[in-house]
Structures are given as structure tokens and as C-alpha cells.
């Protein structure tokens, strides 16, 4: 399931351990390098993650907000970044279109669940490797508040309770249902690719470099099913469940087997319609628990 655990090894500012900068800097808050794009200059601060294919840097945007600069490690990955740009931009346009004319309280704000591509360009000075500059919805300006889902398991050695697990599954499921509606499959759902804010209950599907758009949705049925299944496996793991059987730890919040059964069926690939599943999921949640804010709740992992 784990595609690459190296994404955000050092994302959270203030996390234990030194955060390496590109060059030696006594004050990590000074800009280290300025990269010029067509939309303005980006102030790179520090590297915050990497895989074999991309490196991530925290960067200041021209308007003063913070974002993430993602650069291909090799030109052969440029096309994937271009694809991410295309698909995320399409999703952003559709999200804004859906909300056009709606009152603030009635907006769906689907774009909460995925990054915005501020700009995508070739960096001539870096062997013509491609760069995507990413930001998040305006009220998520401090990226240090976002943590990848695998931190819960690997760093914190915790398992969340079922009600906490519910929004950690339900919110990305909403993002997937929106993407799938417009013919886009993520194809990289994993515990590295889900960024969470435990306090505010944000969940962002971050990486879309493997995503695929197809005007014939039938072509992507298997990819849609896999997106849902991988999300369910993430949910099972962060709730301390058994990845092979889908069995969740006993918990007082689980008064019957419906919640566990639904998530297990998701993981087994029973569902390929994320929109329909989203409705089923939240109908069940409302039946099980009251509709109220449930703060992040976790205990030490039992296994």
C-alpha cells in the first residue's frame, strides 16, 4: 500500500529533529533562494520532503502566503507534474464553478480537499526540470499545521478512535467523489498522500502526479475503485485495525458491525462510485453518532 514514505519526513516545523536547509543558515526563517516564475518570485525556505521523483520545498508566494514548491528530480518526471497541473487546475475551475453564485454558507468548497497550482513552469537553471508551486485554500496558510497521515502511526505510535477515523476517511472521500465526477482518478492514495490537520479537521489529498483524466469515465472504473480501496486501508491502519482482515479494535463507539463492515467493503473494492459511497458513508455516520464536533482522539497503538 505504501507508495513512498519519504514525502514529508520533515514537514512539521517544530517537530523533533533538525530541519535541514538548502544551505547552512543560522536563522531558518530567512529566505534561502529566490526562484522566478511568470507570476512572480518564490522564496524557498527549506526542503520539507522528497521522493525518488520529486523534492518539496516550503516557499513564500508573491502575495505573502506560504506554499509548497515541488520540483522533479529528473526531466523524465516533468510530464507527471504537467499532468498534476492540468488535473488540479481542472478540478479548481470546476469547484469554483459549482460554487458560483452561492451564498458563503452554501458553498461546497470542494477545493479545500486538494492543493491549488499557483504556477507550473520549467526551471531552465535546474536542467529544465519542471516545477509546480502549490498552495492551499486561503484559510490554510500555515503548512506546519498539516501532517501526513502516517505520522499518526509511525511517529506518534497512535491509533485514532472510530469517530476521528470517520472524518479522516469521509473528507478525502468527498474529494475523491468530486474528482471522479469530472473524470479524474488520483491513483496515488496512501498514508503519505493524505495531509491532516488534527485540530481543524482538514484532510487534503496532496499528490496528483499519478492522476489520470479520461473523458470516458468507464475507462477509469478500476482506478476509481482502487482510490476508494486505498483510502479505506489508510483509515483501517490509522484506527489501529488489521490491514489483512479489516478488523477494527473493539471500541465503545462501535455498537454494531456496520461501520467496520462498510470500511472493509471499501477496502475490498466493492465500491467504484465515490459519490454514491459518500452518501452511504455519511448516512451511516449520522446514524451512529451525533452530528457534533468530535475533537481528535487517539490512544497508544495496541499493535
Amino acid at each position: 500500500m505504501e507508495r513512498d514514505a519519504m514525502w514529508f519526513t520533515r514537514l512539521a516545523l517544530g517537530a523533533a529533529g533538525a530541519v535541514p536547509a538548502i544551505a547552512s543558515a543560522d536563522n531558518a526563517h530567512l529566505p534561502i533562494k529566490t526562484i522566478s516564475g511568470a507570476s512572480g518570485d518564490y522564496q524557498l525556505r527549506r526542503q520539507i520532503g522528497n521522493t525518488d521523483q520529486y523534492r518539496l520545498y516550503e516557499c513564500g508566494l508573491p502575495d505573502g502566503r506560504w506554499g509548497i514548491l515541488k520540483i522533479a528530480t529528473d526531466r523524465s518526471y516533468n510530464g507527471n507534474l504537467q499532468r498534476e497541473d492540468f488535473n488540479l487546475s481542472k478540478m479548481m475551475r470546476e469547484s469554483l464553478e459549482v460554487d458560483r453564485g452561492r451564498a458563503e454558507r452554501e458553498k461546497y468548497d470542494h477545493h479545500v480537499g486538494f492543493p491549488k497550482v499557483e504556477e507550473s513552469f520549467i526551471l531552465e537553471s535546474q536542467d529544465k526540470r519542471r516545477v509546480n508551486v502549490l498552495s492551499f485554500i486561503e484559510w490554510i496558510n500555515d503548512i506546519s499545521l498539516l501532517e501526513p497521515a502516517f505520522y499518526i502511526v509511525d511517529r506518534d505510535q497512535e491509533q485514532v478512535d472510530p469517530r476521528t477515523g470517520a472524518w479522516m476517511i469521509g473528507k478525502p472521500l468527498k474529494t475523491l467523489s468530486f474528482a471522479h465526477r469530472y473524470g479524474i482518478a488520483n491513483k496515488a492514495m496512501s498514508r503519505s498522500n493524505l495531509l491532516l490537520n488534527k485540530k481543524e479537521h482538514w484532510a487534503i489529498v496532496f499528490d496528483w502526479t499519478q492522476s489520470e483524466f479520461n473523458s470516458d469515465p468507464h475507462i477509469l472504473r478500476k482506478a476509481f475503485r482502487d482510490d476508494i480501496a486505498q483510502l479505506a486501508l489508510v483509515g483501517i491502519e490509522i484506527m489501529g485495525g488489521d490491514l489483512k482482515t479489516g478488523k477494527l479494535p473493539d471500541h465503545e463507539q462501535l455498537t454494531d458491525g456496520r461501520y467496520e463492515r462498510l470500511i472493509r467493503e471499501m477496502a475490498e473494492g466493492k465500491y467504484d462510485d465515490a459519490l454514491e459511497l459518500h452518501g452511504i458513508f455519511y448516512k451511516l455516520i449520522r446514524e451512529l453518532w451525533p452530528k457534533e464536533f468530535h475533537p481528535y482522539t487517539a490512544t497508544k497503538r495496541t499493535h
Partner: protein
Amino acid sequence: MGHGRHAAATFAATAKEISNSGRSVTARGEEMVAKGEELHRLVDPRTGPRLSGNSMAEQPNGTYVLVHGVAMPVVNESDTTGSMMNYIDDIFRAMPGIQSCMIQSPSSPLSRYQAQVATGLIQDVYYSRRVKRQMLPYQISQFEGDNRIDEQMQLLVPAKQPNDTHTEDYQIAIYHLAFRVEATIWQYGLKGYAFITGDEIGHDYLSGSDAKEFLGVELAKQISAKEICQELLKKWNFFYLQVPGYRQRETTAWWTSLIGHERIIQLQDAADIPFVESVITGLTEGTIEPEGAVGYLTDFAASILGQASPEYTPDFMKNVKELSSSRISRIVESVMHIPFRAQADLPGFDKIPLAGDIFAAETDIWPVSSQTPQTVAPNTGGTDWTL
């Protein structure tokens, strides 16, 4: 292969002659076969491999100059049964527009190469064996950069019959592309472009007897279509343009198993083929950004209309006047799943020789004197760092 480029004026004269005759583009080839003659050797795949090589012109001092850029093979093939029976006629008429917008204009995707175009037909072995022996199930012209493209199209012999077997022998065509083409472009680490248009499945294997009879090739044993495609994709930016047909899902599934669904384009209308190929080429070469595809296609379509001979404008080019924004959007959306920049991101992309480079010998691959910009050390602003 010659040094020249496809000339619109020469094409117009040919088109006018055909138009005045009232006959189809492939009348010459059809007449030869009707008289009992064999398929012309220039389009008979049994005559040997197809070659795509750099066009060099000898200079007084004994060196050679690359006239138009390295040779880029471009293959257009189609089955010609059922709804596709007029494919050759349509591609013929679209050639000036294709040349202008996809190949020759300074901003076109293939402008830095000498595109050498080959046109082919894919038909049914059954029809060839039982009905018309000379109408080989696979016919392919030579790779040409000039108006010999038009001449050789006229030698093809399409079956123009309904397809009763619901298969076409694509495995013969893809074997030929994978193993019976020799192209200089591969020596630079790049790939050619190959488009097959159709609406059917092929067969899972190419038999030794079919390879011998229809390609003149001795095979020790049959070879699977899957194995053929593994080799095919190493050499070609290959796409299957699927038109609506009898077994839509099955056809998509068969081709997906061979080349992946990212290389299958669902066409609503065969008339979209030149536009689809142009956008695909641009996205693959990196000359078009996905967000700019609609604007590019709008300009391309307008140019095709401007290039069309008034006496010989096929229906689909007349429809260019009606190339609505919705149709353009549909065409663009139909190709947005292909691998972007698949050619542009290859290691050798920026290193190929350019038009005007000087070579010591005609068969040399690398020049002694080059127009290609030398690799420049990254501009790091004085700091040795890499992101």
C-alpha cells in the same frame, strides 16, 4: 527519401487532376489490381523494410549538410472497411493542412525535424486470401518528406468492403512497425509517431505463415501481439484512434491490454483525426501546454481551412467552418489522458542535430559542426546548488 519538403502548389495540381477525373484518390492502385497486376512495390511491405533516414546534401568540399532537420517518421494507418473506407481520400485532402500546421510552420510540433510520412492500410487476411489476393491485408508506403507522400497514397488499394469478420489483422501492421522499420531517429534516443485508426480488435498472435505471406518475413515461431507491442512502444509514440464500432468495449479492452488505455483515443468522428493527431504530437513534443490546446487547435483548424483547395475540399474540411468551441473542447478532452511530454522529456531531446549542421559523411549520425546550443551550466546565481 529526398531533400525536399511537401509543396502545397504541387499537391494542388495533383488534387485538381484527381478531382477533374472524378475518381477516388486510390484509383491508380485499384486499376492496377483490377488488371491483375501485383500491388505496386512502393506500397508492398514484402519488398523490404521501410527506411527513415536523415536527408543530407553534399557540399562542394565533400561534407554534407542536414537539409531540414533529423528525419522524424510519422505513420498514419487505418483499416479501410465499413465507415473507414474513405480514409485514404480524407487523409489525402487533409495533407496540406497537416503539413502546414503539424510539420512545416515554425510553431508546429514537428518543425525542427524533417517529418517523413508513410501511409498504410490494414485490412482482413480473409478478404485477401479468399476474395482479392493482391489486396494485401497490410499495405504501407515509403517514408517520404515531399510530394511523393501524395503519389504513393494513390498506389494503395483499399478493400472498401463491409467487415464481416469483425476483426482486422492489426498484428501484421504493428509487427511491421516494430520490426520492419529502420529509423535514424532511434539513434538519438527519440521515437517516431504512429497512429492507427480503427474500430476492431486484431488477433492475439502473428503466425509464421501470415508473416511469410504478407510481410515476406520468416518467423521461427508465432509471436504474440503483446510481445510485438513491447517492442513497438520502445520505438514509437504509438496511439490507437478508436472510432465508434460494433464492439466498442471489447475493442477498447483488447487494445488496452496491449498498449495501455493512455494511448487509446476515443474518436466521436473520424473527421477529427488530423486535429487529434496534431494535438497529440504537440503535447508529446512539449510544444503545446495542456491549457493551451484549445487555442492551438482553433488556430490549426482555421489554417487547414485556409489551405484547402477550393476544388477539392472534403466534407470534414468543409465542416471546419463549423468547428465549434464545443467540438474543439471535445477533441481536446479526448486526448488529455495521454502521457504529456513523452518525447520532450527523453534524455536526447535537446541534443539532436538541427537543420544546417555539417556532417563528415552522409551516413554519420552526429555532425562535425552543430547549430545545437551547447549545454550551459545551470544558472545558480553564483551559488553551486541544485534543487
